[in-house]
């Protein structure tokens, strides 16, 4: 089969560029593309809208602007070569995908017990820092979509101090490539704990002001309470996880339900809120910032200072992994992220698939929430659902 043509495939006649094709177009409706070139869109995606005045009648999500074919590329690369590209799957939060790749490969090669104690602690530290920085970014972005520039400027700067810590630990600001097979790539630098502690203090010091600007602001409350409610019965049907689920009052968290790394030894609570609207999701994120800071402080205290941080690795050029399949999961800032990993005994991955929470959030949930929504709330809704396009299309 050299050239694949859709027209020969069954179901070709179902192709329609517009939903409800064949129905007559309402002359009152205006068609509007929200994105990809739009300051209010999250990343590079677009929502095609049919508007009547300010009210959205219906809409479809279009993704695929960021598709690089990671899953195909990783099938072509040796295992160790997959590590540099896997972190590009989710731009804002690269450590989760790094961990997922490392841990799924370790599990399939039967070496998951070989990861040293300190390596596990460092992995936990990096993952939690990563969650913290994304949650800070989203907190600011949430109110930024509603036209306030002050809070995003503050939170982005706080996040930037965290990125400095990442840079010190891993050498990279955004893409860390830190978690590798068997452990992590580098040890802590001397004095890292104190500097990270100072950054955490700085964040904590600014949090009350952020509360006043965001959660306690009367305008923000009016804008968000009761807006974009995700019905509770969608939770199971659509497989919702993360802050969107916890804003419904359901205390489910991958870190606690499917314990991994050092999370069982840490003391943290699962933050929930009620209402399932944008305000509730912001409340959950606000609580998670404090919780993440608490977790990072614990990690810094409980982490062993000495010891190896990476297991002895096989020769990366001749390394093969026996055939098998698995699914590993981790809690990202958006919800449960998982890797389906299939190997076939050769030196490359047979198939890898990233299961991300944005997949349902951005397409299934968003499209079903659009009818009746005010166009002013669309951007805020997308941020509150944390629709992250690079994770949807990979």
């Amino acid at each position, binding site marked *: 089969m050299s050239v694949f043509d859709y027209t020969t495939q069954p179901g070709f006649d179902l192709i329609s560029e517009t939903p409800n094709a064949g129905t007559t177009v309402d002359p009152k409706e205006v068609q509007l593309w929200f994105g990809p070139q739009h300051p209010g869109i999250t990343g590079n995606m677009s929502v095609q809208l049919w508007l009547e005045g300010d009210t959205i009648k219906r809409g479809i999500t279009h993704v695929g602007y960021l598709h690089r074919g990671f899953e195909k590329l990783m099938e072509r690369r040796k295992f160790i070569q997959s590590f540099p590209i896997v972190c590009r799957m989710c731009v804002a939060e690269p450590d989760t995908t790094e961990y997922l790749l490392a841990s799924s490969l370790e599990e399939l090669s039967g070496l998951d017990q070989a990861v040293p104690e300190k390596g596990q602690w460092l992995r936990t530290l990096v993952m939690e820092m990563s969650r913290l920085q994304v949650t800070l970014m989203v907190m600011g972005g949430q109110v930024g979509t509603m036209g*306030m520039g002050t809070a995003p400027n503050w939170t982005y700067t706080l996040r930037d101090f965290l990125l400095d810590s990442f840079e010190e630990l891993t050498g990279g600001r955004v893409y860390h490539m830190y978690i590798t097979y068997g452990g992590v790539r580098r040890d802590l630098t001397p004095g890292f704990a104190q500097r990270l502690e100072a950054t955490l203090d700085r964040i904590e010091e600014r949090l009350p002001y952020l509360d006043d600007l965001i959660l306690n602001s009367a305008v923000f409350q009016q804008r968000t309470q009761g807006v974009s409610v995700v019905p509770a019965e969608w939770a199971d049907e659509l497989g919702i996880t993360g802050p969107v689920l916890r804003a419904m009052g359901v205390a489910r968290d991958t870190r606690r339900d499917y314990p991994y790394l050092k999370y069982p030894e840490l003391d943290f609570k699962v933050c929930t809120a009620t209402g399932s609207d944008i305000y509730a999701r912001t409340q959950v994120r606000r609580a998670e910032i404090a919780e993440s800071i608490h977790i990072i402080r614990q990690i810094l205290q409980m982490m062993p200072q000495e010891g190896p941080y990476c297991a002895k690795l096989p020769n990366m050029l001749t390394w093969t992994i026996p055939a098998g399949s698995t699914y590993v999961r981790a809690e990202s800032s958006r919800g449960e992220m998982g890797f389906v990993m299939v190997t076939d005994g050769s030196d490359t991955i047979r198939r890898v698939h990233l299961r991300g929470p944005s997949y349902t959030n951005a397409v299934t949930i968003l499209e079903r929430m659009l009818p009746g929504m005010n166009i002013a709330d669309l*951007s805020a809704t997308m941020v509150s659902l944390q629709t992250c396009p690079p994770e949807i299309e990979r």
Partner: protein
Amino acid sequence: MELFPKIGWTLLSLFVAINYGFLINGLIRKVMARIQGRFGPPLWQPYIDMGKLLVQRNSIMHGYMHWLGPIFRSVGGMGVYVLVPVVIGEPRLAGFSDMGDLLLMMYFMFFGSLGMALGAGDAGHPHSPIGVSRGLSQMTAFEMPFILAVVALAAHVGSFDINAIIATQQHGVLSWNLFANPFASAAAFLALLGMNMYAPFNIVGAPTEIPVGPATEYQNSYLSLMMIGRSALAIGKMVMFMDLFLGGAHSIGAAVVKILAIYFWSVFVGAVFPRFRTEQSVRFFLRWPTAFGVAGVLLTQWVR
């Protein structure tokens, strides 16, 4: 004063006012940046922007009505400015305030926005009509308390003539309408938040919803004209508020300071709030500010 020298002085005053508007614009960007923890652009950045807009090419035109929109807008702004007396007892800076009254000024304020709406509607981009409808509904809402406040002051004086209203405020600070009629002032200053279109009332050009709203399709030279019109309108409005509520100004220095103070009232409010949706801002203006305006009118009657 003779007509032609008067025209000359008014044009000169308008030129200075537009420049002052540019500087205030630069200062606002700087102050906003400092509130947000940034360094901010240089004070003269609006001038550079203006120069750049004039030397860029325009690549598209949507018909003459579209082109006339910014002109209407600038004419509206300049019309407001030439009708307000800037410094008391200085005929060279009084403009044509003896020839028009508050009603004409409010006509010019409407005129600019309506002309802009007409022009923007021609652009053909969906963002423009959405922004226009948002802007007009919000404008209708904030005009309500503002008109009530103006009516309260005019009823107190018995005239819509702005010079007469200034004249009643020349008996010390407490005779300023800000203190003499606090209800009307509250209504008018809340309406000013909507007029200046800073958050929470910047729904018209909300970048994350309908990027720049009515002005979506406007390009370089159109934008520069709109910048000029906006400066003139802003200074005209501030001078009008100064004359109505802060007792006018006896010198240019006092005028500069009072204009700045009135302007920054809305800037500081805008720095700490997200924006309302259209129906929320309409509801806001029709609730407390309107009640204040009615109370202001009643207060005037009671004082009489």
